[in-house]
């Protein structure tokens, strides 16, 4: 029982961050029909901003830990949205629906951004204190409150995204553009503006994952890239462009990682993931919830 609950908690904690990250990637693909290889850079930027704003806010401004974390989160979102708006305006809007062009652009962007992060922050891992360091016991399994809060926030954000997509006018446009861009334009939807909205929402989701992970794992200038690889695995399993697929796939990969890591070791878990990917590509290339067409 203890082990089961512990593994469930680990699955949720790892998986929920993957879900947020993969949702952004899949949303950007759905609306713009591009694969954003620089998506991890949004995560990294947010996490790095947290690691510089939080110490500044506690030491220089004298704020409490929660207040400085909140301030750092706001700063992280602001920075990522600015980066997102700039790279969209000067780059991505010219490669909409262009797989080759966007591949070159996003790989190049990834290298440039990683270079900038390295120049500013250097190569050493950076960490910030947990806001909620206390540990709680659930059926004998131990979990820090920080991680519990992370899961709750991720669930709330995912739920909010679902409502946005299913219930709002912007969501209607995002779905329409993803399914048939020309038909969406014929309904009066401004494609470029809708694409920008989708791109910024995707970037914000990566930022959210980065903000949540910063107090939990040490942050380096390439932290997000590891998530990118996992997100590709998730999307292959769940189905590219599928919101539900990103959720199912993210939790599934979280489970493989926590269960595999517990009974074997992390490298076995990683190996299992790649075997799964190969199996999916062979048997069901559209993923669990993707559309064959």
């Amino acid at each position, binding site marked *: 029982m203890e082990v089961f609950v512990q593994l469930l908690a680990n699955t949720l904690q790892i998986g929920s961050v993957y879900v947020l990250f993969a949702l952004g990637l899949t949303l950007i693909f759905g609306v713009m029909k591009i694969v954003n290889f620089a998506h991890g850079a949004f995560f990294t930027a947010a996490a790095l901003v947290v690691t510089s704003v939080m110490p500044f806010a506690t030491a220089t401004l004298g704020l409490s830990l929660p207040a400085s974390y909140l301030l750092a989160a706001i700063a992280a979102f602001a920075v990522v949205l600015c980066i997102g708006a700039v790279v969209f305006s000067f780059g991505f809007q010219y490669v909409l629906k262009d797989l080759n062009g966007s591949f070159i652009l996003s790989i190049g962007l990834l290298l440039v951004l990683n270079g900038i992060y390295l120049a500013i922050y250097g190569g050493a891992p950076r960490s910030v204190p947990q806001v909620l360091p206390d540990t709680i016991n659930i059926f004998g399994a131990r979990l820090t409150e920080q991680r519990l809060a992370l899961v709750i926030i991720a669930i709330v954000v995912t739920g909010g995204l679902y409502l946005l997509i299913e219930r709002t006018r912007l969501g209607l*446009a995002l779905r329409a553009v993803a399914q*048939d861009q*020309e*038909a969406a*334009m014929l*309904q*009066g*939807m*401004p494609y470029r503006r809708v694409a920008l909205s989708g791109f910024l929402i995707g970037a914000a989701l990566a930022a959210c994952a980065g903000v949540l992970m910063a107090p939990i794992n040490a942050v380096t200038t390439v932290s997000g890239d590891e998530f990118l690889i996992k997100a590709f695995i998730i999307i292959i399993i769940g189905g590219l462009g599928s919101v539900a697929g990103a959720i199912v796939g993210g939790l599934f990969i979280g489970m493989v990682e926590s269960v595999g890591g517990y009974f074997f070791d992390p490298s076995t878990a990683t190996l299992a993931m790649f075997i799964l990917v190969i199996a999916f590509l062979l048997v069901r290339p559209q993923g669990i919830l993707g559309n064959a067409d």
Partner: protein
Amino acid sequence: MSEDTTILSVEGLCVSYHGVPALQDVSLAIRRGAITSIVGSNGAGKTTLMKAIAGLLVPDRGSVRFCGKDIGGRTPAETVRSGITLVPEGRRLFAQMSVRDNLMTGAYIRSDRAAIEADFETVLGYFPVLRERLGTPARALSGGQQQMLAVGRALMAAPRLVMLDEPTIGLAPAVVDTIAEIIETISRNGAEVLLVEQNAHMALELAAHAYVMENGRIVLSGSGRELMDSDLVRKAYLGL
């Protein structure tokens, strides 16, 4: 053809795909209060003309005036906002969205909730089968129902001009009749209709005024009756 009876006029329109001309010097006028039809065989340029009016294609030359205003160079979104909607060839529904959401995409440009709700009811009144299937994804509908949904979606924009690109292609005769009736109803209720069809019989029967297109040009125009009696149309399009 004075300005006050003409709602849309196309003058000397030329459109090409990668340098290959698809429309050459096309001129036509749509008058208020009547259905206008364009007939023509495969590849004549009918779809190209509608896409150019809708703002999806940029013409090389020529002008499009709507309600007296030059609308050349507008984006599709701006064209929809000025009151022109297109029911595109092949319907182009949002396949995974429900019938209700497909209809709501048509009302994207509007914010008058009460009026949208009223138009929603009107559309379901035109096509009662859709009412029972509001939650069904569009891809699960029959061909006829999909066409009804495509027409309904266009009407949800509260357009002043509805362009329909081959709305009856591939449909059973009974469904063709339903669509034809609705097209007449739309016209009676105050919107202008531009109907493109390979089904010349239906198109000419409904039309007060009609055009025949061949190889990117208008080759004949007149009242629906006149065209139906002309040798060219009888031979080439009515198979008589």
